[in-house]
């Protein structure tokens, strides 16, 4: 079976699973809608938090960023996980102790101020809308790449699915779908990583594999450093950013991560403060599985790319290269006219994206109009790393389809968490607390569902 059929089957099955869970866990009261009744076990909450927290960027983007920036990419690894430590030690347990539904609730009550509450609501809405739009874009891109539909159609399908279970189940539905989504995404991330690690080094654990040696007895990282320096790059393990840049970017990422509203809200769902702490621990453990694998994938992918393309005649290039070239995410411009690919530092093109023009070059390659002056002939969009990696390693089609389903799980779970923050902020913090304190639980629940609908439409 081809990749597209496999993707239809696997993505379809996961969607059926998510919707089934949503129907099974419908919310009947506002407490169930906002915080899943406050009765989620720490382990389930840990799994759900991990899926909530890991967005399309963690799943699809991060390994690629690290692959093309080497040591510099460490800022994302340390920044995002380190920020989570701040959240778990300094924020989550205290907010849980206060015993309210939302963060604006805490701020409004603690400082006896409705103005402060409104500012918190606006901040939460602003963060959530910006972030949810990015997730939806990720869903659209996966759909368009693998199922041959327009990006916008993909966004609409994704929105419909998320809306369905956020609308029905609220936090309760979202929590249990996120548990399922974590399982899908971690399986989809680890299976190709394990296969590739075995192929590259014989070690099935990617975290150890990228510090091992290949069949030639040379350590993989030493080999990659050597390959890069031969072509004029800085060594992979050294990086190019100054210590001050590394320090400040990491700090910025940490502080931003510690304040993510959809992650904080998750700690209101467990019965006790003790459970809030415990689930924070489980969540980081589950996050760390992906975050320590990503740099391994990065090293395998970069080594693989450099060994495959460097000085290879375009006519002998493997089929994944031309396939991604046809999507415009890889481009080759034969500057010295020798028919071989030369990879060097600097961009092969002027501007951000290659501008393709009609017609093909002497070797059948797609022609571009914005060739740059430097020596580098190869343009690779770093975002394809995770999606292309299984193909580059020659893994079977069902694994490639699985990666697509994993990317969708990562994006949908984050989007659902954010949508809930939006609808809770509107129905609870704005309408119930500010305008109409007398409304019944049932009306509030109806308003919460209605704001989820509005949020989906606005974000889409």
């Amino acid at each position: 079976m081809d990749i597209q059929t496999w993707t239809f089957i696997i993505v379809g099955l996961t969607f059926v699973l998510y919707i089934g869970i949503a129907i099974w866990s419908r919310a009947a009261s506002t407490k169930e809608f906002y915080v899943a009744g406050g009765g989620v076990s720490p382990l389930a909450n840990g799994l759900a938090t991990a899926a909530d927290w890991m967005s399309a960027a963690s799943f699809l983007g991060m390994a690629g960023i690290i692959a093309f920036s080497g040591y510099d990419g460490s800022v994302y690894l340390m920044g995002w996980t380190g920020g989570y430590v701040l959240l778990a030690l300094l924020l989550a347990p205290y907010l849980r102790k206060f015993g309210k539904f939302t963060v604006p609730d805490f701020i409004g009550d603690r400082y006896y101020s409705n103005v402060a509450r409104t500012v918190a609501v606006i901040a939460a809405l602003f963060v959530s809308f910006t972030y949810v739009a990015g997730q939806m874009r990720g869903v659209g891109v996966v759909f368009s790449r693998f199922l041959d539909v327009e990006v916008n159609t993909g966004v609409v399908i994704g929105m419909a699915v998320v809306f369905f279970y956020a609308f029905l189940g609220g936090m309760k539905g979202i929590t249990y779908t996120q548990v399922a989504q974590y399982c899908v995404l971690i399986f989809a991330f680890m299976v190709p990583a394990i296969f590739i690690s075995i192929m590259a080094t014989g070690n099935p654990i990617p975290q150890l594999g990228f510090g091992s040696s290949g069949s030639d007895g040379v350590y993989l990282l030493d080999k990659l450093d050597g390959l890069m320096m031969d072509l004029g790059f800085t060594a992979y393990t050294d990086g190019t950013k100054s210590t001050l840049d590394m320090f400040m970017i990491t700090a910025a990422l940490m502080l931003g991560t510690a304040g993510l509203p959809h992650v904080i809200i998750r700690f209101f769902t467990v019965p006790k403060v003790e459970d809030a702490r415990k689930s924070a621990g489980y969540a980081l453990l589950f996050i760390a599985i992906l975050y320590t694998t990503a740099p391994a994938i990065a090293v395998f992918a970069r080594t693989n790319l450099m060994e495959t393309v460097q000085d290879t005649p375009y006519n002998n290039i493997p089929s994944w290269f031309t396939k991604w070239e046809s999507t415009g995410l890889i481009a080759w411009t034969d500057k010295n006219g020798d028919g071989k690919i030369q990879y060097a530092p600097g961009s092969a093109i002027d501007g951000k994206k290659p501008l393709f023009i009609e017609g093909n070059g002497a070797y059948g390659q797609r022609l571009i109009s914005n060739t740059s002056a430097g020596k580098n002939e190869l343009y690779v969009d770093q975002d394809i790393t995770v999606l292309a990696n299984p193909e580059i390693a020659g893994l079977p089609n069902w694994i490639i389809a699985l990666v697509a389903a994993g990317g969708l799980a990562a994006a949908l779970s984050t989007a659902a968490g954010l949508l809930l923050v939006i609808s809770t902020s509107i129905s609870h913090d704005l309408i119930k607390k500010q305008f109409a304190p007398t409304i019944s639980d049932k009306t509030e629940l109806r308003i919460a569902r209605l704001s989820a609908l509005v949020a989906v439409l606005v974000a889409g």
Partner: protein
Amino acid sequence: MNSNLRKKYWQSNLSYVTILLSIWFLVSYGFGILWVEQLNRIRLGGFKLGFWFAQQGSIYVFVILIFIYVRLMNRLDKKYDLDR
């Protein structure tokens, strides 16, 4: 709980967080960024040690830190009868 006990509880809470966050700072900003070049002269198998801390070690330590925090705080809650 009277205010004296509450103060003691809060002090232990703060000292736990301070110690744990010092380790948090040391492994990420310290080993992974500030002293990365010095540590890179030491090898851990195929890894340079500084690079390893930046991309692997710091994350492992973070996970351990949170679990230590959970243990310490739950024990503290029990000691002061706050675990309900």
